[in-house]
C-alpha cells in the first residue's frame, strides 16, 4: 500500500464513536489516520507529528477548533500544513472565519458518509 507511507493525516475529534468510524474507513482505503481526542493537546501533536493534512473538529472541549487553526497558521513550522474543518457544528460566520484563517474547506460530517470523506481527502492530497 503505497499511500500508507505517502500521507500522514491527523484527525482532531473528541467523540470516540466518530473517530473510531473514520479510522476504520481510512484504514479500509489504506490510509493511516491518527486521532487526537483533546483540543488542548492537538497543537502539540501536530507540531510533533507534522501531518500532511489535519481534519479539525470545531467543538473539541475547552478550546475551539478555530483556536487550534489560528495557532497552526501562526507558527512558521506548521503554517503550511493543510487544514480542513470537519464538524457537525456549522455557522455561516464561523465557516467564513475559518476559511479566512487558512482552512482549505469546511465539511459538515453528516452531509457525507466516511467513504466520501476519504475520497475528498485523497483529492486534496493528490
Amino acid at each position, binding site marked *: 500500500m503505497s499511500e500508507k507511507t505517502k500521507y500522514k493525516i491527523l484527525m482532531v475529534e*473528541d*467523540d*470516540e*464513536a*466518530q473517530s*473510531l*468510524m*473514520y479510522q*476504520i*474507513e481510512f484504514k*479500509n482505503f489504506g490510509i493511516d489516520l491518527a486521532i487526537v481526542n483533546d483540543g488542548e493537546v492537538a497543537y502539540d501533536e501536530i507540531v510533533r507529528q507534522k501531518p500532511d493534512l489535519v481534519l479539525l473538529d470545531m*467543538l473539541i*472541549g*475547552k478550546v475551539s477548533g478555530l483556536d487550534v487553526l489560528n495557532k497552526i497558521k501562526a507558527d512558521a513550522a506548521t503554517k503550511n500544513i493543510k487544514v480542513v474543518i470537519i*464538524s*457537525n*457544528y*456549522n*455557522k455561516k460566520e464561523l465557516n467564513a472565519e475559518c476559511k479566512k484563517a487558512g482552512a482549505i474547506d469546511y465539511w*459538515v*460530517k*453528516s452531509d457525507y*458518509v*466516511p*467513504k466520501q470523506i476519504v475520497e475528498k481527502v485523497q483529492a486534496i492530497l493528490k
Partner: protein
Amino acid sequence: MPEISIPIYAQIPSGILIFAIGLYSWLKVRKKENFIFFLLAITQTVFAYGAVALFYSCGNDKLTTFIDRIFLYPFCIMMPILVYHFSIEFCEIKIRWQKAALYFGYAWSAALVVWSQFDSFISGVYHYRWGCHTQGHLGNHFYVLLIISYVILAIYNLYNVWRDKKNDALKRSQAVYIMIGFFIFSLAGFTLLWAYGIGIYPWSYLTLPLFIIIIAYAITRYRLMDISFIFRQSTIYLITISLFLLVLYFVLIITAWYLQISIHWNLVTAAFLASILMLSMFDIVRNFIARLVGRYFFSEVVDYQEVINDLTTQLAREIDLKKNLQIIKDALTKKMKLGGVRIVLFDKKLHTVESLVKAGFSSDVSHFLLRDFLLEKGMVIEQELGFILETEKDNEKRKKIGILKENMKRIKASVCLVLMVGDEYIGLILLGSKLSASAYTKEDMQALSVFSSQASIAIANAMLYQEVRDYSLNLKRKVNEQTKDIREKNEHLKKLLEMRSEFLNITSHQLRTPVSVIKGTLSMLREGRLPEKDREHLLETAYDKSVKLTDVVNDILLASEMKSDKFKIDMERVQLAEVVQEVYEDKKEEAQNKGLELKLDLPSTKIGEVLSNAKYLKQVIYNLINNALQYTLKGSIIVKIEEGNDIILLRVIDTGIGIPKESLPKLFQRFSRAPNAVATFTDGSGLGLFIIKEIIDSHKGAKVYVESTELGKGTTFTVELPKAKSI
C-alpha cells in the same frame, strides 16, 4: 401795524400745544430722548410767542431788536443742535465723530447765542407787509450754516435708521415721521429770509403746527417716546375743552349781541388762554384733590378704573396660575381695600382644584354656594339677598335663599363673584366686608363685575396653559417611557434572536452528530467494509447514538410544547420513590460505564404521594440525573428523597464541575448554558433545566432550585413537591 396773517395766529395754540407735548413726554417717561424733546419744545414755544410779540412790536424798531435778541435768536439758535441731539439719542448712535460733532455743535450754538447780542449779528429792522425782522449780518450767516449742517446730519441719522431693515418695523416707522417732522420744521428757517430783506409771506410759521400734527400722529400711531396712552387721553381732554370753549364763546357772542355791548377781544383771548391752561390741568388737580379728600374724609376712595387697568396689565403679563391668583388677591385686598378674600377654582366636574385664602373663611365655604347658587350667573350679594327674600314668592326658592343668606352671614362673606368663561364655571371669589366697614355701593358692584370678568379670562387662560403644559409634560414623559420600553423590548428580542440562532446551531450539531455516526456505520456495513473485529462495537455505538438522538428530539419537542399556550399537565397521585427507582434502573448502567457511582437514598418507610404526573415527573428526574452524569467527570451522584410534613424533597447531589455564580440567574432559561458546561459536554441542548423548571412550575406549590454549588466540587439540585392530601 402790518396786516396780521393766519400763520401768525396759528402760533398761539401751537406754542401751548408743543409745550404740553414736550412736558408730558418728559414727565411721564424720564428718558434722555424725551428730555431733549422737551427742551426743543421749550424753544419752539418761545419761538411761537416770540413771533407773535415780534409782530406786535413792528413800528418800534428798538423793541423789535430787543425781542429778537432776547426771545427769538437765543432759542432759535439752539433748535438745530437739539434736533441733532434728539436724532443721536433716538437712533442710539455711538459713533465717535458724531459725538464730537454734537459737542462742537453745542459750542457753536453757545457762541452764536452770545454773538447774537452784538450788532455784527443783527442790527436794524426790515419792514414788510406781513411783519418785521431785524437785519442779519455776519453772525447770522453762521447761524444759517448751523441750521443747514445740523438738520442735514439729523436727517441723515434718521434716514439710516429707516433704511436699516434690521431695526424693528416700529422704530423704522417712528424714524420716518420724525424725519418728516424735522424736515418740515426746518423750513421755519425760511423766516430768516426776512433778515436778508426778502419779504415772503410767512408760510414758514405754519411749519410748527404741521410739525406738531406729524409728531402727534407718530406718538399715537407708532408709540413715539412711549407716551401714546397719555397723549391720547390729553387729546381727548383738549377736544373736550375746545368744545366747552366753543359753547362758551357762542353764549358770550349771543349775550353780547342781545345786550348790545361790545366784547373786549383781548380779554377774551386772555380768558381763552387761561381756560386752556386750567382745563388742561383739570385732571391732575382733580386727582390731587380726590386723593387729598380721600385721605382726610373717607378712607376708601378707590379709583376703579386704575385698579382694573392695573389688573388687566398685570394679568396680561402673567400666565402662571398661582401668580395670577396672587395678583387678583392683591388687587382686591390692597387696592380695593376689602377684608376677606377667597378664590376657589373648579374643574369640569366642579371639584375644587385650587384655593387661595386670604382671611377668615371656614374651609367648607364653597359647597353651599356651589349647590344653591352656581346656576345663578353673575354675583351674589349678601345685602341684596334680603330684598330678594322679600319679593320672592316661590317657597322653595325662599328657603334656599334664606339658607344661603345665613351661610354667607355665618362665614362673613359679603359678596360672591362667580367666575365664568362662556357658560363654564371656573370658580368663585368670596369677598368679606370692606375694610372701612361701609356697605358695597353700586359703583363697587359695577367695578367688581368688570373685575370678575377680567379675572375669569385670566384664570381660564392660566388654567388652560397649565393644562396644556401638564399635558405636554405628561406626553413627553410617556413618550420617553414608551421609547425606553421599546428599546428594552428590542434589546430583549435581539437577545432572543441570538439565542434562537445559537440554539439552532447547537441543536443541528446535536442532531447531526448521532446521524453522521449512524449513517456512516450503516453505509460501511452495507458496502461490506466493516471489519469483523470492530463490527459489534461500532454497531453498539451507533445504537447509543440513536438513543441520544431520540433524547434530543424529545427535548426539542417538549420545550416547544411548553412554550405553547396549550401546555397543561393532568395531575394524578404519584408515588415519587417509584418513579425515581425507575429512572435509576435506566441510568445505572450508563453511570457504571462512565465510572461514576449512582446511589439511591430512599426513606426506609413508605412515603406519601405527590400530586403530579408520572410521565412529566420522570422527565424531571431523568433530566436531573442526566445532567449530573454529563457534568460529573469523577465521583458520585446521589439521588435522595426526604419526607417533610407537607412536602417531599428530591435532591440530586453530584460531585461535578459546579455552576459559576454568574450563570445562576439565567440557569433555568432556554438555551442558557454555563461556559464550563459547554466545554465539558458539547452536546448539551440548553433545554434540560428549562424543561424541568416548566414542569415544576406547572405544579401548585412546587419549586426547583440549586441548593448549593461550588466550582469543581459539585452541585445539589432540589425539587420540592407538596404532598397529595390523603382522602
